[in-house]
Structures are given as C-alpha cells and as structure tokens.
C-alpha cells in the first residue's frame, strides 16, 4: 500500500494502547461510521498528567494509525501539552498522510481533546 508511509503502516499493523479504560476520567469521540471513521478516546488523569490513554477506532488504516499515534504522543503529557497536539502534528509524526486522508481520518487529536474537555467539565461539575 504505497499511499501510506512505513510509520503509518507500523501503527496500523501494531496499534499502541488499543482498548477501553473502564473507569476513565474522560471519554471523547469524533467522527461517525457514515463517514467511515469514528474514534473514541479514554483518558486517565492524575495530577494534571495523562497517565493513561486508550481508544477504540472504526475506520481505515489512516484512522487507526492516527489514533495509535495520538495515544503515544499524549500519554505522560500534561493536559495543557496534550491540548496543544494538533491533527497536523499527528500527520507529521506519522511521516505524512495521503492528501485525501488528511481531513476525514485524521481525527485523533480532536477525539483526545474531547476526552480532555469531558474530564475538565466533570472536574468543574464534581
């Protein structure tokens, strides 16, 4: 599959941190199956740090690789640092994505941000 970089293929074939976190501190999802890509992120937060990041992804190779990459990039970061991760950073870290995948499949950062928002809104409420 020449349209994907080796890095993408590596993360697609061996996705890091797949799964759910039962007692997640925040959950966020982005995309939907109609478009072909949907991701759900779960985070554990401890003292402002992302101690765990997991996800489930329905989608193409790019979507799965992006989720995996985001989870790797975010894990261990502060919430502020994680909020600073953009879809662009993810694509760059993956050594590029095919042009036609840049918009629809590269939703990992957005889903992560939603999970952080979820955590923060719960924190405010709770």
């Amino acid at each position, binding site marked *: 599959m020449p349209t994907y970089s080796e890095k993408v293929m590596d993360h697609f074939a061996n*996705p890091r941190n*797949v*799964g759910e976190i039962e007692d997640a501190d925040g959950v966020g999802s982005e995309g939907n199956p*109609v478009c*072909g890509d949907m991701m759900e992120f779960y985070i554990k937060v401890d003292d402002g740090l992302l101690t765990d990041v997991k996800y*489930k*992804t329905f*989608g193409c190779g*790019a979507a799965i690789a992006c989720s995996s990459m985001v989870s790797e990039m975010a894990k261990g970061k502060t919430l502020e640092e994680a909020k600073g991760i953009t879809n662009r950073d993810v694509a760059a870290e993956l050594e590029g994505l095919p042009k*036609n995948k840049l918009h629809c499949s590269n939703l990992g950062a957005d889903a992560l941000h939603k999970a952080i928002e979820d955590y923060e809104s719960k924190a405010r409420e709770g």
Partner: protein
Amino acid sequence: MRDVYFDYGATTPPRPEVVEAMLPYLKEQFGNPLSLHRYGEAPREAVEEAREKVAQLIGARSNEIYFTASGSEANNMAVKGIGLMNQKRGKHLVVSAVEHLSVINAAQTMEKLGFEVTKVPVDKHGVVDPADVEKALRDDTTLVSIMHANSEIGSIQPVGEIAQVVKERSKAYFHTDAVATAGNLPVDVKELGVNLLSLAGNQFYGPKGAGALYIKRGTRIMPLIDGGVQEAGRRAGTENVPAIAGLGVAAELATADMEERRAQLVPLRDRLIGRITSEIDRIYLTGHPTQRLPGHVSVVVEYIEGEAMLLLLSMQGVAASSGSTCTSRALKASHVLTALDIEPGLANGSLLLTLGRDSSVEDVDYFMEVFPPIVDRLRQMSPLYKEA
C-alpha cells in the same frame, strides 16, 4: 504466505496468448491501418480479424462492432451519442440507479446539456424491475441504459425482458453495459434484443486500452470522438492495433472456454459465500444470491471498515477490494450500496472478492483461514462493536 488475487473484478491478467498476439504490432507490424502500402496491411487485417472475433463473442455482425479504448468510453459514446443525435425526437433518458459511473455521470452531463434523466430504482438485491422501466418510459425517451451485471454487487439484470418492454412500449434505443459480463457469461445481442452494448477487454483476460461498442445496424448515433474515417467514421483516432488484436484473441478464447470457466467459478463462489456467511456472524451478502456473476462475492461486514480489512488481508497475501468510502478515491459512499438501502455505516464495511481463472479451492480455504481473525481483530478495536 499464499498469494491470492481476489480482484478479477478490478482487472484480469491478459492471457499469454493475448500478449503474444499483441507483440508483432508493437514491433515490425507497427504500421497505420489506414496506410495503403504494405506497412498498413497486417495491422489492417489484424483489426478486422479482431472485429470478427468480438462480433462472434456477442452474436453481432462485424460491421456492428466499434472499437473504443475502454468500457467507459463505450458507455459515454452510447449515452451521449444517442442522446445528442436524437434530440429532435426527445430529450429524456432512462438509466438504473446502479449503473456504472460512466453511465451515471454521462447521464448527468446530459442533464447539464438540457436533457432529463429518470433513474430507475432497484430492489434489495440490486435488481431492476422491468415494470419500473416501463413506468419510466415517455414519448420523448430516446435511450434506456440498463447494465447487464453490476461489478460491485454481482447482480445480473433481466436485460432481455427489459429490452422487450422498451421495444414494445417506446421508440427508445436500448443500451446495456455488458462490461462485467461480456467474455464471462454468454452474451448475445440478438437474444438480449439490445440496440447497443458496451464491453471491455481487460475484464476477460484481454488487454487494457481496448473496449468496444456494439451498435446495431441502422442506429442513429453521434460520434464521441470526431475526426478521421477510422471505425467507419464513428470513432476517430489511430487504431490501437496491438490492444485491438489482443482484444480479438481474448474474445476468441472466451468464446471457447466460457462454459468451462463458469463451471469452475460458480462452485468456488458458492463455497466462499457459504463459508463466509456461516463462519462469521453479522456479515451479509450484497447483491442477488444466485443471479450473480460467476466468481463474484460481495459482502458487508458489520462494525468494521473496508480499507482496514483490505490492508490486513493484503498483509496475508490476499488482494481484494471494497466499496467503502475510504477506498473510493472520490471519498463518497458507493452509489450502488446506497441504492440498495444499505445504511452508510454498514456500507463502509464493504468487501469485494472476485475470483477468476487462477482461483482455486485452496485460495478460498486459505482466505477463510486468514479472514475471520482479521474481522475479530478489527471488531475488538471498534467502538461500534462494543456498543452492539
């Protein structure tokens, strides 16, 4: 790892005899068929011989065969050429909702040029009801175009019946896109009763770059490509002699071994359909269960996405395809699956396995070894599966 090509629907490998037949026209016999001198002789004869072989494949006369460069060109030539030539009689066209994009989009262009197009629906198996075509016919209908078989879902249309209805109930010409069937299933223009029919060599072990449009004698049609006198003035441009010669041989070989090939493929297809739908849950056959192309298996797999399946299959040596949004370059949901009322999320789990000459029981069984774990794996990471 086994090397399994399950994408004969995308294109077929040219048979060695086909390539062999092309070579002379790439080398010494490079002349232009229009040339009066000796360099033109063999190429001219090759083109006319191929015309006869293609005519034989579909029960036509050789002077009713017009070579094109592709199935898409043949389809465009039919839709636009008939529409534009007969506009005094009317500006209404009828196509089905599951036509190949080269028909659908050609019809759309005709709309831009002031024509009206009626799209006939299909049932849940992707089959057109002749009664629906009848309903769509109007006094000003000049062309009805209904494909012989759909390459995405495999369903074969009742083209003979539809042609009959069109003939009895209107003055419209009837065109069928037989790109998926010609060379693979018996196709006879007289039995079908069609006025025009498209075919393409690369779908039956012929070369790329060679298709044909059958145009029944007496049909009024405007060229798509104007210019010189090639193809009786109906399709200009220096003939692609090697490809045409190859198409001829492919047609000849197909005529000879079609039955044998069908007898090989139908059991393989049914074995694969049987195993895949019984051994994996929440997987559904698309298209008609029996009225379908030999060797054609198409399914939708719930909770997971097509491209991801293709990538993992590919890592196991299996080449297949999908109608999922992500695998279409246009990134649009397949209009065919949409026409079947399959909901878009499910349609994204489309998987297409098209078998051909070199496919074997071993291939099918190998596939059924590697595929279930792929489905499992992707479902395990799917947020939809969890929710289900």
